[in-house]
């Protein structure tokens, strides 16, 4: 770990001011940033501790949406009764991740900003375009069983690790960003970027910008949503494949649907093709199988991760069946 300065701020203005200095980075729960600093993957010269900002509320808005402060802990969010009843998929997704202790520290903003668990990214010995643009990608021809089958580019095939973000994509959330020159709201689908030629740019956040809130629109889905996560072990473990789905039914027909995938794509992945298959179709296993096929049509396997295609399909089918029967 390299030396760095540390300062705790108490308001957004101060936070944005401090973040402009040197190679400053915000620290919220610290659950992933500190690891990456120890591994010399992130080497900030200054840490700006934002835990003192008043961004830790979950609020009902008059338009039926819910506004989640960037500092709301993952555990608090998952156990909030409004989230559990109206956005079940989000609660399930968060609880499927990390461990109870980590969730008590991890924040909503930090979760969105967490970085890939690609082996080579986290070990500075290997070439990695994400860590060091232009250096090459050790995963491309290396062991890549945990890597992406969707959204990859010639420069990077790393998956986005978040569970929470997959549910947010399914729920069409939006992210509020504060910059020195004002605020903007970005739909979650546009928040994370595909690697393209710039895998080091993972989100639309520019250095020094602060996530303040995430809002969940009041959706038509009610409790009919579900998250299914498939992984190597039962806890402390990232998804090999996951699916976040939501269904709106009219009798036995699907009126509208949302399908998002995790663990298989370079960003939290919205599967619009699957949603099209579902919309207007009978809510049954056959439809779900078709939707799963559609969700993975564009998948490109690498040497060691072809199994993920089948695994992701099964996650989709399982999640849809769960949402239906819930």
């Amino acid at each position, binding site marked *: 770990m390299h030396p760095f300065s540390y300062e705790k701020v108490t308001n957004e203005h101060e936070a944005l001011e401090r973040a402009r200095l040197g190679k400053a980075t915000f620290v919220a729960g610290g659950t992933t940033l500190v690891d990456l600093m*120890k591994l010399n993957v992130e080497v900030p010269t200054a840490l700006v501790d934002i835990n003192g900002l008043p961004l830790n509320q979950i609020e009902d808005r008059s338009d039926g949406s819910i506004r989640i402060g960037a500092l709301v802990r993952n555990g608090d969010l998952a156990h909030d009764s409004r989230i559990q009843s109206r956005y079940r998929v989000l609660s399930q997704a968060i609880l499927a991740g990390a461990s109870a202790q980590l969730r008590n520290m991890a924040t909503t903003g930090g979760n969105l900003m967490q970085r890939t*668990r690609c*082996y080579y990214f*986290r070990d500075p010995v290997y070439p990695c375009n994400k860590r060091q643009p232009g250096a090459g990608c050790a995963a491309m021809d290396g062991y890549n069983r945990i890597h992406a089958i969707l959204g990859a580019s010639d420069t990077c095939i790393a998956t986005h690790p978040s569970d929470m973000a997959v549910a947010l994509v399914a729920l069409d959330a939006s992210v509020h960003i504060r910059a020195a020159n004002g605020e903007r709201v970005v739909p979650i689908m546009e928040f994370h970027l595909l690697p393209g030629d710039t895998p080091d740019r993972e989100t639309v956040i520019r250095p020094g910008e602060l996530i303040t809130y995430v809002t969940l629109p009041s959706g038509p889905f009610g409790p009919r949503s579900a998250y299914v996560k498939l992984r190597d072990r039962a*806890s402390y473990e990232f998804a090999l494949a996951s699916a976040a789905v939501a269904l709106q039914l009219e009798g036995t027909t699907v009126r509208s649907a949302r399908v998002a995938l995790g663990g298989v794509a370079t960003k939290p992945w919205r599967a619009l093709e699957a949603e099209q298959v579902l919309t207007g179709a009978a809510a049954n296993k056959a439809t779900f199988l078709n939707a799963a096929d559609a969700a993975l049509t564009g998948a490109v396997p690498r040497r*060691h991760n072809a199994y993920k295609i089948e695994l992701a399909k099964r996650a989709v089918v399982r999640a849809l069946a769960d949402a239906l029967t819930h």
Partner: protein
Amino acid sequence: MPSRSVGRSVVRKEGRGKVTGAARYIDDLTFPGLIHARTIRSTIPAGEIVDVAFGFDTSGFTLVDYRDIPGRNIVALIDDDQPCLAERLVRHVAEPILLLAHADREALLAADVRIRYREAVPTYDATTSPIAFKTIAIDKGRIDQGFREADVIVEGEYRTGHQEQLYIEPNGVIAVPEHGGVTVYGSMQCPYYVHRALKVLLDLPDDKVRVVQTETGGGFGGKEEYPSMIAGHAALVAIKAQRPVKLVYDRVEDMLATTKRHPAVIRHRTGVKRDGTLTAIDIDAVIDGGAYATLSAVVLSRGVIHATGPYRCDHIRIRGRATMTNTPPNGAFRGFGAPQTQFAAEVHMDRIAEALGIDPVRIREINALRPGDRTATGQRLGRDCSALAVLRETVKRTDFKRKWRAYARLKASRCLKASRYKEGGSRGIGLSLFFHGAGFTGGGEVKLASKASLALTDRGARILVASTEIGQGTRTMHAQIVADTLGVPYDCVDVNAADTGQVPDSGPTVASRTCMVVGRILQRCAEDMRERLGRLTPREYLKRHGPLVITREYERPTDMAWDDNSYRGDAYGTYGWACDVAEIEVDRETWEVKPIAFTTVHEIGKAIHPVLALGQIEGGSAQGLGYALLEEVVMRDGRMANAQLTNYIIPTTLDTPPIDVVILENPYKHGPFGAKGVGEMPIDGPAPAAINALRNAGFDLREIPATPERVMVSEKQEPRHALHA
């Protein structure tokens, strides 16, 4: 007469210190003037060092390379082929080349060393590697005749991967230059291994090297031989700088550079009669030694001796090879070769049963070793051979036969349904029967000639051994044996620190020998002390006769014999016997494998401390399930690519089913209170039990770990006859 402590779960000696935080581990210690060291390692798997350049101002640093070694540049062990610091040739990634030290850790970490290499072509495939560190042949009877007697021949190839020991506390030492020599404090299993390695490396006499074990956070074999390396490094720097030096690895360095379990490829060809009797066992085992010999020869030895599993057969041929690859040396890990070979044996045994159409229990009942039978090396087993007893107890306790049939039937009926995604969960139940020799293999204990001492104290006695407490309960168990033999309360027996300046060489703390072998030497000390005391209390004796220290050496039981050339004879003093049953659930949509119940029956002679014995068995079982289902070392160009706990995963509590442990006691006549060893055996059985359970559920795997992608492609097409079973 104080109440006996043996057989009771008394408070462990170091327990209070550990739970109150008073215990001091190596990184808790410091010394005046202490500096920190860092190891510069090779980044290539094979080649030559061309030159070394320093991209920083070296003033204020202590730099050490092979030229600073006063003695021989080796890590003294068995073959003495491994340099302490590479000179010109590099044989694996992470091979130590240089040492840097500085008082300021930031400056140390920032120091930039650039090494240029001439790369050579590395070898990664152990089965085709031209260099063998060791080959072993075991022959019993006439293999050709055995195959002639067979009605059916079953063949199979089985593979196991690396496994990381993953002790909680990484390797670390502090070296202090003093009295014209050096004292090394550290986390380790074998202080006298380190002592010897330092003498050779530093060219110092016995009394100029002192090695002191500090409280140690686990070892599992990973601190058997490696501490000799890291202690050598710290000592070289300390001697050059003439200051105390701390060298503690972080997790990544520990995983990249230190030893792991040997990967293995094991082929079986077995002849069997229709009625299930084994007529011929032909085994070929290759283990991947990595770049240097380290302990590969003895790992191979234990591996091949256990390779048949606990079965009798008149005609056996075993060929074992430990070969060189350009990967970091593999080394000691709980089980020491036996988990690999018994994995193969036990998965193969289920396949033999399947080929004959008999159940897994029956095939084992027919062939299990019994008292009076001879093992592959010709060892005649005594009355404490308990293979059948553990098998029957486990089968009864788990309702194995009924469940096994029921799950197999379910599986067969499912195969008739041609749906794309098979509905629901599948269950499977699997069994493994295994054994584990306690103590060093063959003539090892005679060569070691271990000594233990007991000093009389005011209140009782003080134990002086180099056997280490690494979390498994050495101090407690030794104190119990001494207390009861001497006839004093448990609390009146103290245990000296494992400090080579104070204790005799009781041998390494490995090979499930610390209770059975060292405990027995201590018991003999206590018996003699008891006799010397006569009717006097310790206090009275000391007053009247002055200090009393009794030292005894290992004595080979007169009924044991071993020939290292022919590999025949009594490979071990005795064996523990165990049987595991794993019940698993496979989600047929998602290939998630979840162990839902685990039962293990262990016959260990005598449980000196039942809770500690139980802890060993539970811990070893969990570690074995990790080996079976989760743990995978990703080697990329000879380097571990997932050397972080986020990517190398071991079971959490949620991945570990409730473990039902039964301890049976069939005393070994030469063990203290009848005790055998228990440390390693528990890890031999879980992997084959879990894989056999998967087979029962319809998944045919021959390789571990059983990751989802392996499970996915292993779904069996049922042979027709199974449908009518």
